[in-house]
């Protein structure tokens, strides 16, 4: 029973992390149709700023957490301003390839300016402890991941449903042209969406740093690939779909970890993707996606 509970917590924690990252992708995609491959590098910028701050003598974990979130939001807004604004009204493929290019540039800049090798960051290790609840021992990091992700998603939902800017963002995902006709500034809506997306990535970065205790140039890349898959699984562009897809991905992964014998553990990633692709055979539009009528998102 203890083992089952532990694995359930594992799945929830993994799922929460994927959901956070997938939500960041979905917020941006739903508004401007950008498939942001550079999202992983936003996580990277966040992690490397904590690394640099620690190297310069920062010791307070709370400041490090704030710094991670702020750096990620700033990085996201900067990427938008520098690279994505010129291709804002271009076809989806153009934006996707631009983002892919940005991702390559930033990853290689980490390599060039800091080091291709992983660098140790120990400032957030304190978050990763064992907590004892009676007979149960749980990892504090996993509990925090679950709680913080839940609160973040709640805050995001409140923001999107209660504030004017949130309303504008939701409206923009339906029909950007009309939103602009209502006197809302396009740049502000998009910058806000990127800031939200970045902040979500920053929170994910904190958890990654606390778990791994090191940074490397491809830190966020693999995670974002998985988050993309979660988005596709949930239905691309749907926020609820992204969150649900992330959770489901967490459960599939942990399920495979439990089910696969030790010597086949390396096939976990391959099997995860096979399962997801198989799910897409039955629902090409994703689990919560709507069947898009031909030409719906065309301008």
């Amino acid at each position, binding site marked *: 029973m203890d083992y089952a509970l532990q694995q359930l917590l594992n799945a929830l924690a993994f799922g929460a992390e994927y959901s956070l990252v997938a939500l960041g992708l979905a917020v941006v*995609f739903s508004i401007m149709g950008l*498939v942001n491959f550079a999202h992983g590098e936003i996580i990277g910028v966040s992690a490397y700023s904590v690394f640099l701050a620690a190297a310069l003598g920062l010791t307070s974990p709370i400041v490090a957490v704030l710094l991670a979130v702020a750096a990620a939001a700033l990085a996201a807004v900067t990427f938008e301003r520098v*690279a994505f604004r*010129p*291709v804002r009204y*271009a*076809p*989806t*493929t*153009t*934006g*996707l*390839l*631009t983002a*892919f*290019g*940005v*991702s*390559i*540039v*930033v*990853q*290689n*800049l*980490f*390599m*060039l300016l800091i080091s*291709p090798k992983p660098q140790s960051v120990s400032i957030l290790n304190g978050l990763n402890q064992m907590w004892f609840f009676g007979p149960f021992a749980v990892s504090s990091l996993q509990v925090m991941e679950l709680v913080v992700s839940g609160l973040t998603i709640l805050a995001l939902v409140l923001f999107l449903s209660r504030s004017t800017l949130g309303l504008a963002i939701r409206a923009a995902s339906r029909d950007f042209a009309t939103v602009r006709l209502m006197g809302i500034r396009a740049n502000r809506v998009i910058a806000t969406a990127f800031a939200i997306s970045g902040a979500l990535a920053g929170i994910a970065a904190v958890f990654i740093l606390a778990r791994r205790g090191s940074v490397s*140039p491809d830190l966020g890349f693999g995670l974002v*690939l998985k988050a*993309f*898959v979660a*988005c*596709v699984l949930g239905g*691309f562009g749907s926020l609820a779909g992204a969150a649900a897809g992330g959770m489901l991905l967490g459960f599939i992964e942990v399920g495979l970890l439990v089910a696969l014998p030790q010597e*086949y553990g*390396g*096939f976990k*990633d*391959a099997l995860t*993707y*096979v399962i*997801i*692709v198989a799910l*897409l*055979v039955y629902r*090409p*539009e*994703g689990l919560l996606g709507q069947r*898009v009528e*031909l*030409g719906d998102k*065309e301008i």
Partner: protein
Amino acid sequence: MSESAVAARPSDAVTPAGNGKFRRSLFGGLVTALPVVLIGLAILGFAPAYYMHLALAAFVNLIIVVGLQIFMGNSNIANLGHSAFVGVGAYGVAVLSTPLAMKKLSIPNAPFGLAFVELNPLAAAVLALLVVAVLAAISGKIISRLSGVAATIVSLALLIIVHSVFLNWTDLFKGNQAFFGIPKVINLPAMLVASVAVIVIARLFKDSRWGLQLRASAQSPQAAAAFGIDAKRLRLVAWVLSALICGLAGVLFAYFAGTISPKLFYFQQIFITLAMLILGGMATVTGAVTGVIVLSIGLEFIRSIESGVTIAGVQLPQLLGLSGVALGVVIVLCMAFRPGGISGRLELDEQLSRLFRRDAR
């Protein structure tokens, strides 16, 4: 749209499989391949042996990029998983054609009795391409049903699945270690012939009924559907053809290098070939060829700086990652300022005929 293309349309409608049209695109393909042939002959004639290896690698990239163009250029869906097929082609011939004595050293426990199979290189290549075709048909069936973005993500998932199988099925693929002892049967002339053939095939497909319909459905899905075009089936056809050519590139790579490892067919290769296609312009086969020529030369310069050079007596440090930055910058700048790439919408022969027409005037 070009004048010549507009002028060509009405006659196409009368004779869809017109002989003249076929001859024109065959000729066009050969014109596009001409610079490649010239460069190849120049390398054969004058270049020192050290450059031969670089040239062969560049030709493999050329075949990959042309294969990529067949799917991306016509369907306008980004494919980020084509290296999976390159890898399957390469490992296919590696497993099938490596001499038995070598296999006893490298993969003695191969399943299905593959440790005791040694085919001649041609038969191995055909079988490997058959495997690529089956994999492409299955993955294409799924990908052609998805919308553009989801298709791209699934193509990435395919890359990761295939890479992960190479890494973890150690009995068959040797995992992370290099797979060596593949017979080296490909030299530059053979590679040249393959490149020209692939360029012509890509051009014929682009100008064919299927290519035209696929490009039309990429531009306006509704209008194409209203004309009764089955975009899904066409995407599947383009996907399989593209995969076969990428698989062929893998086969040729294995046969000239003799040694392969999984990391060769992963993101690094995706980055490079994608940047080449985008820089050249993915709408045309000429663009694919142009991009490969320009970036192959450019990257070689950057790599020499990357490994640390001495400029005016100052020893520069090693700059790992510089070529990656350059590739990314090329992609970003191209997308922002010239999304059509260097060659734009016209093939080389179309550009030339325009040029001469203007001169005559």
